[in-house]
């Protein structure tokens, strides 16, 4: 594991190496070199199993973190490749040619985070949401509570109670507040 990390650090200018456990390491790479690094890991170092691709919204730094979690089934080790991209432009190179399921992950990220992967198949087809016209819902600035209050207004005949007050009123109706 250490040799692989030393090697890719030299070749692809990887930084911020974090050894989470003996078998799991995270590294950060620049956006331009990310797909080359992932291809190198898959074809040369044997990280043939794509575990997951997901995004983390670091809104305070105006960045999205993309994590490509790769697994080497022979050596039984994992590498988490982190790529930081600008939150405003939110575009990343597509890697759909490397794994067949990659297109599904990219399609979900486009819908949920608004990250664009030009060239990825069926990217703009709705995956989970249908007729969504708000900002992508998994972004940090999307407020789920506010959206629910605005969209699903209280139905007639339905009331909301504070549990403590409600039980007090029910059990001790004569007692004053």
């Amino acid at each position, binding site marked *: 594991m250490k040799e692989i990390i030393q090697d890719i650090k030299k070749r692809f200018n990887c930084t911020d190496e974090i050894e*989470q456990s003996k*078998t799991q390491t995270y590294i950060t790479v620049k956006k331009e070199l990310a797909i080359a690094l992932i291809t190198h890991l898959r074809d040369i170092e044997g990280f043939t199993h794509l575990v997951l691709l997901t995004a983390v919204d670091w809104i305070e730094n105006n960045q999205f973190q993309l994590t490509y979690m790769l697994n080497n089934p022979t050596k039984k080790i994992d590498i988490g490749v982190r790529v930081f991209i600008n939150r405003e432009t939110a575009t990343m190179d597509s890697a759909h040619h490397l794994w067949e399921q990659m297109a599904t992950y990219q399609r979900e990220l486009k819908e949920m985070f608004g990250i664009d992967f030009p060239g990825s198949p069926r990217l703009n087809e709705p995956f989970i949401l249908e007729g969504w016209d708000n900002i992508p819902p998994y972004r940090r600035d999307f407020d789920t509570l506010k959206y629910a209050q605005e969209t699903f207004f209280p139905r007639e005949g339905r009331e909301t109670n504070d549990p403590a007050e409600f039980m007090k009123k029910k059990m001790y109706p004569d007692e004053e507040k």
Partner: protein
Amino acid sequence: MKKNNKIWQGDRSKYPAFDEYGNPIIDLKSHKFTKLWHGPNHPGVTGNMSLELTLSGDEVVEAKTHVGYLHRGFEKLMERRLYIQCFPTCIRMCVPEADSNEYVLAASIEELGGIEIPEAASWLRTLVLEMARLQILLRTVPGQAATLSLGMGAQWGMYLRDLILDRFEELTGGRIYHMFIIPGGVRGLLPAGFKKRMEENLVEIEEFIDKIEDLIFTNAIFKKRTIGIGYIDPSWVDKYGIVGPNARAAGYNRDVRKDYPYLKYNELDFEPYVGKDSDVFTRSQVRKHELIQTVDLIRQILAQVPEKGDIRAKTPNVLHWELPKGETYQRSESSRGEYGLYVVSDGSKYPRRVNLRGPSYTHAVALLEKLLINANIADVHSIMVSLQTCPPEIER
């Protein structure tokens, strides 16, 4: 070429026509194709998922998976909850096997918080995970035959599954959602007489396995309709991210319990069953052997699980627990394959990001869309169930 008069084979050389990329040219107005929605409320679909099929005669030319009927935004909701509050949300990510969810979340929190769990808790977690595997396999093994209208085994299986749910109720208080695994350990020890009652159930399950061998696996119709159907090329395993029983049926000896031993699995004696032919029949054989193996594993665990002892490590107050900044990925072997959770902590009381890696994310979308091409309409359901798809873990 000599014409085979015995078996009718449609001439597919000219029709449907394919474009330069190998995709079929589909013109619905030509009346040569039929669009059929298989689901989301089809009684045969294992959950709220639908397949948009384009048929030419009774053969599938194109298949598209549609999910989103069960989207609840769990990953987003968890970002606004304390770690302990994430548990009731997380277990609902895959309903039939909720304990894997509990385990991966608890393991991620413990990994980030640097907590070691006591010996007894480790054994009890292993027991609960294997019981969860047992109850789902009692549904899926005979369920494969039910997709081909042989429903008897599935009914027996449902009865036995209820017995295991009784044991769950006894141990945890819940039947489907248990909330037994918590950060730092588990909620309780084995109740008195649990081992005896479990053993009685296991004996009954062994009789059931013998019965389904006669009813299903030696049945000529079942064999005819599953052997050679839904073939997964072994070279697709890495290309499509195939894991678990589906990868083992294709000849890959991959099992998270063996490859990345967690809890007490390295102290248990078992060897994953690996198939060769990679069709629907082999996958159901792999699952049947796993059922036998799980019964054996539960016996091994019950012989070793401590009756007394500490079951919970000391953790900070869960209402004010701030995990150190970091990220981790924790995996477990569910009945469907590698099941993992990626958790990012920003040092606050709330997770920054939680992402689930469910096996169905690849099995039910990219792989199923590929497998269904050229399949007969009558086999669609059987192929889908043979991959053991679970839509809730695709959309979360």
